[in-house]
C-alpha cells in the first residue's frame, strides 16, 4: 500500500511571501526499545530522514531518531520565489521510502 501522507501548504503565494508547510506521515516509528507482551524485543522500524525540496533545491534535510513520535508531523517555512514544485521524501528502516509532490503558484 502507498504510504498515507497529509500535506498542507497554500496553492498560491505572493513572491517573497513566507509560506508554512505541514506534513503528516502514517508510520509506527517503532523505537526498537520495546518488548512484546511475551517479552520478545520488537525490532526498530523508524523513519530516519526527511527531505523537503523546492524546484529541486533543498529547503531542509532532517535526521530523525527513535524520539520522534509515531505518525511523524513536521512544520516549517520557506520563501516563495517562483512557481514550481515542492517535493517531500521520507526514508527509513527496512527500505521504507515515501514521497509526495505538490505545486505552488507564485504571483
Amino acid at each position, binding site marked *: 500500500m502507498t504510504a498515507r501522507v497529509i500535506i498542507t501548504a497554500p496553492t498560491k503565494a505572493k513572491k517573497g511571501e513566507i509560506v508554512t508547510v505541514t506534513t503528516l506521515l502514517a508510520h509506527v516509528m517503532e523505537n526498537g*526499545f520495546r518488548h512484546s507482551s511475551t517479552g520478545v524485543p520488537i525490532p526498530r522500524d523508524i523513519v530516519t530522514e526527511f527531505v523537503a525540496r523546492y524546484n529541486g533545491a533543498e529547503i531542509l534535510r532532517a535526521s530523525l*531518531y*527513535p524520539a520522534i513520535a509515531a505518525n511523524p508531523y513536521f512544520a516549517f517555512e520557506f520563501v516563495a520565489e517562483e512557481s514550481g514544485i515542492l517535493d517531500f521524501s521520507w526514508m527509513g528502516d527496512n527500505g521504507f521510502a515515501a514521497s509526495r509532490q505538490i505545486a505552488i503558484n507564485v504571483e
Partner: protein
Amino acid sequence: MTTRRQFLEGAGALTALSVIHLRAAQATPVAMQAAIDAVTGGAVLRPGRVKLDIPPLVENGNSIQCTVSVPGPTPASDRVRALHLFNEKNPQPNMFGVRFGPRAGPAKFTTRIRLAGTQTLVAVAKLADGSFWVDRVEVVVTLAACVEDP
C-alpha cells in the same frame, strides 16, 4: 482463555522486564553531552539566539509538539546552518538534527517528540559563522492511569 492469575503474572513479568530494560538503555547527561560534542566538535555553546518552545507540563510522553527556532532577522553571515534537539533521559540522546539547504526559509522546525519522563531538553543552533547557541528547557511529563500495558 487467560485466567486472572496468568494475566497478573504476565503483567508482573512485563513490568519487571521494562524496568530492567530502561536502566540498561537510558541516556544520561554525560551521554547527552557526548552527542552534543559530536555535533559541535566541542565548541563553546553560548546561551541565546536559539529558542525551544515546548509546554512545561505534558499529559503524555508519547507525543509532545515542540518548535526549535532562531527568531528574528538573520544576515548572511549569521545564516542558520542547522538546528538540533537532545535529551538526557530517553534511551538515546539525539532527537533530531535539521540541516538547512539553499532554499531554506526562516530557521524554524516543528515536530512531535517522545519523552521518557520528566527531564531537561537541549536545543542547539549552528550558525554560518561557526558559532553554536543553546537553549535548555525542563519538561514535566505526568503519568497516566489505566494504560494499555500496565
